[in-house]
């Protein structure tokens, strides 16, 4: 993370630590222990939206067996879950509920955007009722492409997430610094959602060829 470890003392690299562990000495930091425990028991939310949900379920079954990575405990309630796998197309009608569920999850919480639809709208991007990516409203940690991604890919995205968790620093962890992250729930209007995106989380990419508005509409 951004803030380096400024505390005095030994900062061990992984090889030295492994050597010491072999010798029966465990030297550790609270950060390391904390992240190790967190990364090994990420509880996902039972949250199926569309096609990708079936592959998410398949990753939990015996052939792929997500419990090898400590994440087999799918919780139906957001209050007990750590990880939200947004598995499928988020429609505009569904988007407020997704944000609301995210708000209800306790810290620390992570989000995997699974499948092309959750990342950007995917094949349905041009639809009038399809949200063009869930990252417009909530922060996403891992993007998992595919339509739908294979169960192996779900496991790999979980591995990436665990790697990310291992680099977390307690001091800058939002769970301790800001408390539970909550984002405003978008509201329905006559044609679209209001606001169309949450500027705190997401900004549209800058267009190098942008024309002024008057020219474009003329």
């Amino acid at each position: 993370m951004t803030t380096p470890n400024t505390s005095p003392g030994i900062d061990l690299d992984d090889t030295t630590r492994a050597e010491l562990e072999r010798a029966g000495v465990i030297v550790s930091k609270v950060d390391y222990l904390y992240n190790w425990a967190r990364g090994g028991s990420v509880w996902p939310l039972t949250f199926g939206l569309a096609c990708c949900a079936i592959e998410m379920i398949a990753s939990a079954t015996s052939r792929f067996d997500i419990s090898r990575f400590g994440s087999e405990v799918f919780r139906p309630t957001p209050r007990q879950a750590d990880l939200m796998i947004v598995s499928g197309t988020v429609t505009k009608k569904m988007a407020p509920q997704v944000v609301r569920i995210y708000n209800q999850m306790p810290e620390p919480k992570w989000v995997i955007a699974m499948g092309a639809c959750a990342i950007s709208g995917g094949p349905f991007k041009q639809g009038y009722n399809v949200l063009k990516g869930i990252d417009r409203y909530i922060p996403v940690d891992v993007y998992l492409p595919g339509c739908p991604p294979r169960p192996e890919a779900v496991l790999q995205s979980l591995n990436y997430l665990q790697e990310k968790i291992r680099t977390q620093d307690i001091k800058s962890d939002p769970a301790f610094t800001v408390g539970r992250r909550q984002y405003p729930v978008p509201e329905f209007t006559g044609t679209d959602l209001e606001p169309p995106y949450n500027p705190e989380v997401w900004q549209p990419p800058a267009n190098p060829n942008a024309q002024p508005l008057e020219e474009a509409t003329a």
Partner: protein
Amino acid sequence: MLQQFPEAEWDEAAGAIIAPLGQALAVAEWLLGQGVDYCSNVTGVDYLEREVKEKVTGEDGKMETVTRTIPSRMDVVYHLYSMQKQTGPLVLKQRTNREQPQVQSLTPVWRSCELQEREVYDLFGVDFTGHPDQRRILMWDEFEGHPMRKDYTEPFDYEWEPTPHNEILDKHHRGKVIV
């Protein structure tokens, strides 16, 4: 059938019966009595006003191109089958205008029309008289407009993005620009 209802038209190109205005319910009840007990599919079709160019042979034997205007209309199409006799399909259409479309609901005859007519109301804006529960079904309640109509303009929610999706870029150039 055409004897029973002399005003009903047979549309050869579509292979469909067009129910006379305001008599669709009577036609449906008569069909049900004839054993057509299963209504499979209900949908709307929106036809915009359009011009077609036709080649007509004039009186002097020369080919002429004539432009003809086909007025706009709205169709509600029913695909009917008979489960007793295992026959079908029979295509029944109700034809109405586009501006204030209103047709008779056939839900009292075939229950399967209930959700599908609600869908046609939602996406096409056709008013079904006699429908027990006519509300929006797929879009949210506050939604304005009927998105499956041909002249529906979608909300502009694209932004520029570095992709080779030509259509999206076109849309971006045509519409507003979010920098």
